[in-house]
């Protein structure tokens, strides 16, 4: 169990590094799917099989497909990859990366020092999650339904491409 956890964690970290350093966005999304799959394995090892299934279905399935559809609608050409290569130069990424790594080192030190109690190793199955979700968290479920509704309305409103209305006297006369 320990070894599988460490292998999955290594795969997740490596593929996430590949995501944020790729120039072609489709390649980055493929690595993102690998990262989500590895995290699903981690969830399964942690004793959360329902969360692992949701990770594969919603993250690796729905969200990545949504991003791919939008990239297809944008119709990016090969110049976009060259432009990405031009944007991502070492002087841009070295500073923020070093600062973030310092923060991570502090976090690792804090977690390593603190005394933690061991995992019980008990599997929390779908039944308990469902009873909790529709019992004490019912208000949260209703609120997230409203959030999804506002997401749909917002995406429709923002995604609509308005026609430019130019007054006919302000238009340039055609030669």
């Amino acid at each position, binding site marked *: *169990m*320990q070894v599988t*956890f*460490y292998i999955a*964690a290594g795969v*997740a*970290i490596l593929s996430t590094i590949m*995501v*944020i350093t790729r120039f072609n966005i489709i390649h*980055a*999304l493929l690595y*993102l799917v690998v*990262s*989500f799959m590895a*995290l699903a394995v*981690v*969830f399964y090892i*942690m004793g*959360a099989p*329902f*969360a692992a299934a*949701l990770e594969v279905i919603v*993250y690796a399935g729905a*969200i990545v497909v949504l*991003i791919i559809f*939008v990239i297809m609608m*944008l119709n*990016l050409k090969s110049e976009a990859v060259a432009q990405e290569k031009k944007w*991502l130069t070492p002087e841009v*990424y070295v500073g*923020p*990366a070093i600062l*973030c790594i310092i923060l*991570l080192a502090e*976090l*690792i030190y804090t*977690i390593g020092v603190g005394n*933690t109690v*061991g*995992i*019980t190793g*008990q599997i*929390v199955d779908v039944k308990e*999650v469902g009873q*909790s*979700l529709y019992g004490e*968290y019912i208000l*949260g479920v209703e609120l*997230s339904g409203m*959030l*999804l509704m506002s*997401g*749909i309305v*917002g*995406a*429709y*409103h*923002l*995604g609509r*491409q308005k026609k430019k209305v130019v007054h006919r006297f302000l238009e340039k006369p055609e030669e």
Partner: protein
Amino acid sequence: MSELQATSGLLLAGTLFMLGLIGVLIRRNIIFMLVSVEIMLNAAGLAFIVAGSKWAQPDGQVMFIFILTMAAAEVSVGLALILQIHHQLKTLDSDAANTMKG
């Protein structure tokens, strides 16, 4: 399972969150920034799963489901904004969208 795994699960969540933060900071393409925000949300969900597994309570997975819902709503609105920015500015450079008049 031992005590090591709760610690290393939290460390994995922290590392993934930092990678997503680096991605938001260093990329100029808006789509890459959105993907990095997804990575950060996923790492936060992993932390909740680890905590729920540590105390063998279902609350961690419930919070993960809420984070999942929020990520889905956020990515749909964000992609609609990206479409609108690309339609108006003809570029995906986030520095190009620095004026309020668009």
